[in-house]
C-alpha cells in the first residue's frame, strides 16, 4: 500500500464524497416528498391520480436507476429536455426513490387498524385531527425501518452516477486506476469513503429498528 499516494489523492476523494452525499441527500429529500404525495393519493384513493401513481410506482420499481438516468440524460435532450448532470442525478434518484418511499409510507398507513380511526372519530375528531394526532404518528414509526432501508438503498444507488459523467467516488476511483494503475490504493479509498458515508446511517437504522421492534411505545 502506497500511503503517499493515498494522502495525495485523499482530497480528490473528499470532493467526490461531498458530491455523492450532496446529490444523494437532495435526491432522498425529494424522494420523500414524492413518496408522501403518492402514499396520500393511494391512501385516500383519489380517482384518476391513484392509477397514475400506480403506473409510476410499477415503472420506477421495475427498472434500474442506470437505465432511468441514461434515458433522462441522453434520451430526453433529443426532444428538447436538457438537464445538467447533477440535476439529472437528483431527478433520477427522486424518480426511483419516490416509489420506494411511497411503498414504505403506504404500508405504515395500512398497518393502522381502521378501528383506531373509528375510535378517534367517536371522540369527535375531524379527518384532519384524526390524521394528525392518531394515524400519522403511528404510521410514521411503523414506516421507520423501511424508510431507513430506503435511505441506505438510495445512497448506495448513487454509485451509478459516474455513468452520466458526474465526478463521484466511482468516477474518481476508475479515473485513478486508469491513470496510475494504483488499483489497491484507489479501491481502498473507495471502500473507506463508502463506509464513512453508509456505516453511520446503517447503524442508526438498526438502532431505530431494534428500539421499535422490542420496545415500541413506552420503552
Amino acid at each position, binding site marked *: 500500500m502506497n500511503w503517499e499516494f493515498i494522502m495525495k489523492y485523499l482530497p480528490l476523494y473528499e470532493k467526490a464524497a461531498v458530491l455523492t452525499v450532496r446529490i444523494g441527500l437532495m435526491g432522498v429529500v425529494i424522494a420523500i416528498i414524492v413518496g408522501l404525495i403518492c402514499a396520500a393519493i393511494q391512501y385516500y384513493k383519489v380517482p384518476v391520480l391513484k392509477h397514475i401513481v400506480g403506473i409510476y410506482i*410499477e*415503472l420506477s*420499481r*421495475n*427498472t*434500474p*436507476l*442506470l*437505465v*432511468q438516468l*441514461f*434515458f433522462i440524460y*441522453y*434520451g*430526453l*435532450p*433529443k*426532444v428538447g429536455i436538457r438537464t445538467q448532470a447533477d440535476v439529472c442525478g437528483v431527478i433520477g434518484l427522486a424518480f426511483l426513490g419516490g416509489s420506494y418511499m411511497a411503498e414504505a409510507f403506504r404500508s405504515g398507513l395500512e398497518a393502522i387498524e381502521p378501528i383506531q380511526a373509528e375510535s378517534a372519530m367517536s371522540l369527535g375528531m375531524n379527518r384532519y385531527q384524526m390524521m394528525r394526532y392518531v394515524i400519522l404518528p403511528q404510521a410514521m414509526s411503523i414506516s421507520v425501518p423501511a424508510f431507513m432501508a430506503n435511505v*441506505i438503498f438510495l445512497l*448506495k*444507488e*448513487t*454509485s*451509478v452516477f*459516474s*455513468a452520466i459523467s458526474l465526478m463521484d467516488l*466511482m468516477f474518481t*476511483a*476508475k479515473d485513478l*486506476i486508469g491513470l496510475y494503475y494504483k*488499483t*489497491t490504493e*484507489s*479501491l481502498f479509498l*473507495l*471502500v473507506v469513503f*463508502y*463506509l464513512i458515508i*453508509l*456505516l453511520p446511517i*446503517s447503524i442508526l437504522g438498526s438502532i431505530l429498528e431494534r428500539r421499535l421492534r422490542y420496545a415500541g411505545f413506552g420503552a
Partner: protein
Amino acid sequence: MPDLGLEVLLKGKNMMRLIGGLGIALKISLISVVVSIPLGILLGALMTWKNPITKAILRLYLEFIRIMPQMVLLFLVYFGSTRAFGWDLSGETASIIVFILWGTAEMSDLVRGALSSIPKHQYESSEALGLSKVQTYLYIIIPQTLRRLIPLSINLITRMIKTTSLILMIGVVEVLKVAQQIIEANRMASPNAAFGIYLAVFLLYFLACWPISMLAKYLEKRWK
C-alpha cells in the same frame, strides 16, 4: 419530423440485438440466483448456530456485502482480483462472482428473517403434539418459512436483473452497451435516436421485471 429512434430500432437486427443484450443480463442473473439460493439458505441456517466465531465471520461478510454498493463490489472483484491474484477475469465472470456473493448475502438474510418470524409457540405446540425435531421442521417450520421466503426470493431475482445494468461499467456487452453501439452507428442518419433506443431499453427492463414482481406480489398476498 426527425426520427426519435423508432426507425433505427426497426432497422436490420437492431431490436434483436437489444433483446440479445438483455438475454446476457438475464443469463447472468439466472446463474447467480440459482447458485445464491442454496448457498444463502445454507448460510442463513449457519447463522442460527451458536458458535461465536463462525457467527462473527459470517456477520462481517454479510454486513460488508450488504452495505457496499454493488458497483463497488464489481470494481473490487474486476480490478482488484487482477491486482491481488494476477487473475485476468472477464467482465462477465467478475459479474457472476459479485452477483453470487451479493445474492448469497441477501438470501441468507431473508432466510434468517423468515426463520425468526416463526413464533416460538409454533415449535412448542408442535413438540406438545409429540412431533420430533425433524418432523417439527419438516411439517411445521419449513412450510411456513417457505411461504414467506418464496415471494422474497422472487423479488431478489428482479433486483438481480435490475442490478445487471451495472455490468456495463466493467465492460460487459449487455443491453445498455448494445444501445450505445446502435446509437453510435446511426449517429449521422438519426442523431436523435438516443431517445427511442433508451426508451426501448427502459421498457425492455420493465417487461423483464414487472411480470416477476407481479408474481411475487400475488404469492405474498395469497400466502398471507
